[in-house]
Structure formats: C-alpha cells, structure tokens
C-alpha cells in the first residue's frame, strides 16, 4: 500500500465502498418468486404479475445498459429514450440560465460599480432571493400561459440571484489599486471594465455562475414534474406512475451524473480565470 499515491488509495477505497454498497443493496432485496413456484391460489389472486418493489442493483444496471445503448429512441409521447429526456432538460436549463446570465452579469456589474445602487437594490434582492422558484410557477403559468416557457422562466428566476449578487460583490470588491492603475493609464470606463474589473472580479462571478447552474439543475426536475410532457423530471414522475421503480432509480442516477458534469464544466472555467495574488 505504501507505494500507492494518495489519489490511488482514495480511488481504491471508493471502488471498495461502491462494491460493498451494491452487494448490501442486492442482498437486502427479497427475490421475487418465479411463477411456477406459486400455488394455484396465489396465481389466481394475481400474485403472478410482477410486484412493484425497490429493484436490486443488478436490475438497475441491466436497465441502464438497455437505456444507454439506445438513448435517443422516440416511441411516442410516453416512451422516449433517456437521452431525449435529458436533452430537453438541459435545453430548458441552459435557456433559462443564459437569459439570467445575460441580465444578471451586466446588471450586477452596474450595481457593483455604484455604492448607492448596491444599497438601493439590496433589499429587493434579499426579499426575492429566498423565494422558492416553484412558488413562481402558478404566476408564470397564468401570465405566460405556456408550460414550456414557464419552466424556463422558473429556471431563469432561480439562477439569476446568485449570479447577480456575486457579480455585484466581486465588482464592488475590486482592489482600489488596480482601478488606480487603469486610471493612471488613462483607460476609459469601458476599457477599464473589460481589462481590469472583469478579470479581477471573474473568479467571484464564476463562483456565482457555478452556484446558479447547480440550483438550476435542482429546480428543473421539480419544475418538469409539474409542467409534464418531456424532460428528466417528467420522466421520473411518469415512471413512478408506471410503478417502474427500476427506471426511477436509473433516472435518479442520471440526474446526479448530469449535475456533476455541469458542475465540473464550471469548475474548469473557474480554474481558468482564478489568479493568485
């Protein structure tokens, strides 16, 4: 063991935990009796039809293999491949998120530049920020009228706050010395904003963007459960209605994996703009 690096040892431990966890899960699920082992009475009372229950991991793996080998099939409104469902969710998340970024970052920039604006807007932001994004749903459905657009609006409204607050905070916190460097070099306000303030505040802004994408991905599942139609959230709910718990467990895992990938993407971006003082 002494020759393995820290990372290698951690990875080994992770794999071990996974295997042990899966084995315990597998062992904890009672096997269903095969039809031919049942008494005639039991068959007559319907015990022969498959019972809903938490699936063992082996079934989930089979399901995953099955779904992931053909992720984009489309067999009608109630039967689409997991890739299509996730695709819809990502499309909604990105649309709402990008709209939010388009407004939050320039607006946060302006608020951060002016102490008066910062203080004037702060109470509104503080009241609006803790509202659960789903609480906006009825209002959005009524005003917008379209369930698809309402879901995007919910993503928009939940991802705007962390980006807005972090941008304003980052811009307000840019060191006076750096701004003075820009001033003594006669840079105009636009040039200063792009060459000094933006790179200086970029790590804080990216942190806000990373928090936002995380929240957006959390919220999309709930939003799609409400609006229905397509998307990973709808898929989970639909499979629950079908009592197909294997698919439910599989889609839960997929939500986790996609969320992790989104976060990792922003983690990479964040590392690129971070600087050491």
């Amino acid at each position, binding site marked *: 063991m002494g020759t393995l690096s820290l990372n290698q040892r951690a990875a080994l431990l992770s794999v071990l935990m996974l295997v042990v966890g899966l084995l315990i899960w597998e062992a904890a699920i009672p096997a269903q009796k095969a039809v031919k082992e049942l008494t005639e009475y039991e068959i007559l009372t319907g015990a022969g039809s498959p019972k809903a229950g938490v699936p063992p991991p082996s079934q989930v793996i089979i399901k995953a293999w099955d779904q992931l080998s053909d992720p984009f099939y489309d067999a009608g409104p109630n039967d689409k491949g997991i890739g299509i469902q996730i695709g819809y969710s990502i499309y909604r998340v990105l649309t709402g998120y990008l709209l939010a970024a388009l407004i939050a970052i320039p607006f946060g920039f302006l608020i951060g530049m002016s102490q008066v604006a910062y203080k004037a807007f702060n109470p509104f932001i503080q009241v609006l920020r803790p509202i659960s994004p789903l609480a906006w749903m009825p209002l959005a459905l009524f005003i917008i009228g379209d369930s698809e657009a309402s879901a995007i609006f919910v993503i928009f409204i939940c991802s705007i706050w962390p980006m807005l607050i972090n941008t304003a905070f980052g811009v307000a916190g840019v060191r006076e*010395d*750096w701004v*003075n*460097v820009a*001033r*003594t*070099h*006669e*840079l105009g306000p636009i040039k200063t904003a792009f*060459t*000094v303030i933006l*790179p*200086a505040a*970029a790590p804080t802004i990216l942190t806000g963007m990373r928090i936002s994408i995380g929240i957006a991905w959390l919220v999309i599942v709930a939003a799609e459960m409400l609006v229905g139609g397509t998307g990973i959230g709808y898929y989970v709910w639909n499979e629950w209605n079908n009592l197909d718990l294997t698919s439910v467990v599989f889609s839960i895992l997929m939500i986790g994996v996609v969320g992790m990938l989104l976060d990792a993407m922003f983690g990479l971006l964040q590392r690129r*703009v971070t*600087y*050491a*003082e």
Partner: protein
Amino acid sequence: MKPFLSIEKLVQKFPNGNGGEMTVFENASFGVEKGEFVVILGHSGCGKSTIMNILAGLADPTSGCVIMDGQEVKGPSLDRGVVFQNYSLLPWLTTLKNVTFGIKARHPEWTKSQVEEHATNFLAMVGLEGDVIHRKPSQLSGGMRQRVSIARAFANHPKLLLLDEPFGALDALTRGTIQDELLKIWGQMEQTVFMITHDIDEAILLADRILLMTNGPYARVAESVEITIPRPRNRTEIVEHPNYYAIRNHLVQFLGKRSKELAGQPTEASKTNKPKTVRIDLTDPTEDPENKRSTLKAVNS
C-alpha cells in the same frame, strides 16, 4: 519663470469624524525642475501620500493647484506614471503582459511585436530576462514585482514619474539592489522623478534634492535640502564623501526634533510657505571654514 512642476498653495482638509475639519497640510508650495530627482521625507501621517495622490491626479486637493509643463493637473494622465508601494501589478497577467498593458495604453498605434520588444527591453533594464517574464506576479518575489512595476512606469516615458515608497515593503538587501537599478535606469533616461520615502539613506543616495515635511496636522514642506554629492553615486562610496554625514545629521535632526517643533501651527493664508533652501557643502572652498562645524548654513532662496 515657473519650474517644470509647480505645486502652489496646496491645502488638504479631511472631515475629522465629529463634524469638524482636520487640516493635513496647508499652503504647501514647491517646485521640481525637469530631469530632477526629488525625494520627500517625513513621518507617516504628514500627508506625503496625499500629495502624491494629488500629483498623480487620483485625488483632488481642498484648494490650491498643481501645474506641470504649463498645464494644470486635472485627473490622472499617462504623462504622470506612478509606482505604488504595493506594486499594483495585475495578478492575472504575466510579467510581460503587465508591462505591455502600460505600453499599449501609451502607444495604441504600435504593433504587437513593437510593444513586446519595448517591454522586453525595459524588463531587461531592471534585470528581468528569459523565462521570468512569462511568470505571473504571484510567482515572483517582492523585489522582482517592484522591478516589474518600475519597468512598467519607465517604459511609458512619463513626463513625471511618481514613486510612492516603492521599496517600503522590501528587505534591506533587495532594497539596495533595486535602488542601484533605479539609479541606473534613471541615469539613462533623464526622467523627472518625485519620490516618497522615510528611509534617510535611500533619500541621500537617490535624490538631487530632499524636501522635508513637518509632522501633521498643518504639516508643511519646511526645507529643501540639496544633496551636494556628485553623481554617479554608489552606496559604498557616498558614505566616504565629506558631505554625507553632515547632510545625514541634518536630516536626522530634522526628523527627530524639528519636525515636531514645527508641527501644528496654522499659517496665515497669505504666506506661500515656500521651503527654506538648505545647502550643506563642506567641500565648497567659497564657504567660510569657521562656519562649517557649528551651524549649517541656511540660505533663503
């Protein structure tokens, strides 16, 4: 005729926190000639940095004005380069990019290769060559960072270079090397420099003239001491010069005693408060040898 840089009746007042006003300095007036290296020496809190910020155009005085090259100083300008105490390099840019940042602002019409060549030359002048110039400031030592800062300022050929305690955060050995480099680059460029420091030896080594400030409040530039040691100067040789300790003693006396005695006296607004010129030259044969040791000769200009 007015000097190249003329500071006229500068007054700075700040609110003192309980409704009143605190006068940091009053009626400060002095001049700096073209190509001159002037150092301002005084205790902390006497308003040196405030004067520096006003010269840079980063702050406005309560009243009075600064005239450079016939024009009043209003706001920051590329004609006045500043080296800040804490280096003020942009940490997300490499060493080279920090210098090109300044050159691009000064010469927007230059090509990329012109800008880079100019930057590389000036970095080489302060002893930064090769791999180092592609490192970020966080990977450099304090001394190296200040060199970059100096290179950035000199590369822009400002009409006036302002140095705000540039070596304050460095250890004594590094400080020595960079002072030498500053002297070298200054010698090649005939740059007008105005520098703040509280290090007496540094001031004597670098300056043509030292302005002495009394303590605040109501601080003023009380004396202008000529450094009568010929250039080129060298830290090991100047201490041998007969004038060195005479000047040094005068400065120590001022900072230790007279800066306090002269402090806290409001002056009449009509007075211009020009500093008294002090010239100490023990090698000057025209001077009365009897006077040499007892009192230092003060001449009003």
